[in-house]
């Protein structure tokens, strides 16, 4: 059972701010969904390996050759913030 405080903690980790009037609805939906997941506990998965991808590919590498995208300026200019010397200016971190 996910409590209101746990929900707010998870939201904080995820950089989400849940408005006060929606907290209870989010918590009850989350609990319903987490409860649904309980069906997995009945599956015997001892000695079953995990599947994290289905490509059949491993360690895809390419030659270590530098290629210019030629859109550095356009990429930086996607920002809604100020651009100075081709860098995005953000508030002080420290």
């Amino acid at each position, binding site marked *: 059972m*996910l409590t209101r405080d746990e929900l707010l903690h998870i939201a904080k980790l995820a*950089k989400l*701010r849940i408005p006060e009037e929606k907290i209870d609805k989010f918590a009850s*939906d989350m609990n319903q969904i987490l409860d649904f997941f309980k069906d997995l506990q009945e*599956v015997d998965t001892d000695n079953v390996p995990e599947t994290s991808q289905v*490509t059949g590919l491993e360690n895809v590498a390419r030659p270590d050759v530098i290629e210019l995208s030629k859109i550095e300026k356009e990429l930086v200019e996607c920002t*809604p913030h100020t651009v100075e010397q081709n860098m995005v200016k*953000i*508030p002080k971190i420290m």
Partner: protein
Amino acid sequence: MSLTNKSLAELSQLFRAGEVSSREITEAFITEIEAKDGDLNAFVTTTFDLAREQADSSDSRRDQGALLSPIDGMPITLKDIVCTTEVRTTASSNILRDFVSPYDATIWTKLKEAGAVLLGKVNTDEFTMGASTETSAFGVTRNPHDTERVAGGSSGGSASSVGANMCAASIGTDTGGSIRQPAHFCGCTGLKVSYGRVSRWGTIPMASSLDTVGPLAKTPEDCAMMLQVLAGHDPKDSTTPEKPVPDYLKTLNDPLKGMKIGVPKEYFIDGLDPEVAAVTNSAKEILRSLGAEVIDVSLPHSKYAVSVYYIVGPSEISANMARFDGLRFGTSEGEKDLQSIYEESREAGLGDEVKRRILIGTYALSAGYYDAYYRKAQKVRTLICDDFTKAFEHVDVLLAPVSPTPAFKVGGHGGDPLKMYLEDILTIPANLAGLPGLAVPMGTSKDGLPIGVQLISPGYTEERLLQVGHQMFNAVR
């Protein structure tokens, strides 16, 4: 002569024979869009000026005998998560409402190089998270067969634009059923490709181990024509193997005699609409009459697929959505410090379903819960993959319903997220295993709603799916 109700293959033939110009075809679709899209809301952004320019170029190429591909001059739509430099790419989200990508998705580059004509970008659930387009920041897309009903989702704009004759074909994406379910709802054909068959570079991701890009069109043959352009290795997408791309049109009419079709009993779930079951059963008979052998098979772990998907998917979503930080692109709110920019931008830009999935994923990956949820789901995913491997030792293709019901009413799931998640119960397993699936329109309910059936085959055998789908479809056409 009405042009817009013709298939892509028919239009291509008329165009190449010089009986109609690309400009005429394009104008005919624009007229349909102007007449219908006020009610349907399939389009987020129309690109009629671009379309006319591209159509005129196609016409010049035809006059010079220099057509680029069988889809040259053919008007299409793109789900609005495919990045285009010409117009905005919104993912149907407020956080990208005015975002114009500085580069094109690989598939959009390929389509342009093949001469396709773009009519517009079409609606989706926000960041493709939903099964009805009801989570779109641009409003719900309605079903062309009954505007009280949804077009399905997440590729609802794609399916509605094809089903309403507003384009010759569309590009959608399928992470848990998002091409096949809307195709079934709107009476069109939808192909979910094998994981990695089509490049995803420049297509905004949802769940990276599950996402696929593919076509929706009127017929399986049309999907084959589109796949021919889309498929193949992309050095910019390391999940696309360097496997050869077969000629998908060449084998469409190869006889089905001797082919073994498996019908998984677990897909005939409680609550399966009787009309959906009846159309699936009639498809069995059609395949038998075409010389295929139809046998029952079992995929015993199918019932766990929804739980696995809604743990694995949101876990990957919580990581992918972290890029929307209000700093590098998209909507930005808050000023005083980074934490407030993150939180306020995401609060202003993201809808509730996106937030819900980020929360589920963050929870499932957090310390103390990782083993119980994420690791467990990854293990059950292996068992679901193994079920398919075992079934394909005995059969060549699987036949099943696409979704438990025909199109439901707008608002019909009453904001109940779990009810919406169960929409994907019959489509998710193919995504978890990376297999191709094809939804083919095969019948109509007594209320006049389209009903499709689903074919699934082993990885990288799209030509087999299209062969079976093409012949099955022609039997009821």
